[in-house]
């Protein structure tokens, strides 16, 4: 069982996630979430996802690549523009992928 540790990890993550979802529904139904905590939770999605986006665009090979030959950065910036203007998930992914593939055909590999 080479992946036993991963099975166990997933069971723990699954139980924790279920516990979070169940907390107020089953046990704390008559309690209110502290206002400060409620405010903090509002920022979780944007903070987590941004922490994942930035390295994917700016450090595609593990080191900072702030240059016009970084095709992932250029395609990502274009996708940010599309997402901002259209708010369309599928269009953002499609234009981002298409521009990456086109850029990769013309730019030298990183």
């Amino acid at each position, binding site marked *: 069982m080479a992946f036993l540790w991963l099975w166990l990890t997933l069971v723990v993550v699954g139980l924790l996630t279920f516990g979070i979802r169940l907390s107020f*529904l089953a046990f704390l139904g008559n309690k209110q979430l502290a206002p*400060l905590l409620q405010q903090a939770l509002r920022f979780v999605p944007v*903070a987590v996802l941004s922490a994942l986006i930035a390295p994917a665009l700016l450090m595609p090979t593990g080191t900072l690549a702030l240059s016009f030959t970084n095709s992932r950065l250029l395609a990502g910036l274009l996708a940010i523009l599309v997402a901002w203007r259209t708010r369309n998930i599928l269009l953002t992914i499609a234009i981002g992928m298409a521009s990456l593939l086109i850029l990769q055909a013309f730019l030298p590999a990183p």
Partner: protein
Amino acid sequence: MATPRSEFLHGVRDELPILIGTVPFGLIYGVFALSAGIPPLIAQAMSCLVFAGSAQFVIAQLVAAGTPALIIILTAFIINIRHLLYSASLAPFTGRLTRPWKWLLAYLLTDEAYAMAISRYRQAPDEERAHWYFLGAGLALWTCWQLSTAAGIFLGGQIPASWSLDFALPLTFIALVVPALKDRSSTAAALGAALIALLAFTLPLKLGIAVAALSGIALGLALDQARIGKE
């Protein structure tokens, strides 16, 4: 008066437009999990056990980087803690349900199911069978997620690396984050987390994601508090 069946189908129907966005997300997850070196069975089991899209992506990414289990658990916990908000917000409406109902609905409580359920509860506060609507919306999403991740896992082995499909992941995140930047404090939270993620990239054990996310949250919160203080 709505019947359980009509409420259930109503929930399924209202969830359908959201599923259009879920299918590519599930496909990408399946492909991405395999490329991270996760065996197909475990990749699919993760969709059942964890059932939370962005956390599953991050777990796959951390597994690929050889991250220790404890850090994976910590990072996934931070990502999923937002569900506290959903649980607290729905609790006033589900108080009189039986325990099996509460446990079942909690398992199905994703971002997408929450969005539909809370709008139904608010729109029809006297509807005594609205939990059937919640169940319909939640099960529709669950089924769609399981099938699309399975399809992604099936396709995964057949997509050449030169297609750079891994890039669909940050693109999906961009498509989710950018429309959510509605005010200054959430934009600051996003930019702060992004900057710290770059600076903390070399932190051992991939702790950078957790550190960056917490920093972004703290920054957004601080700006919010400063604004409240001024008012």
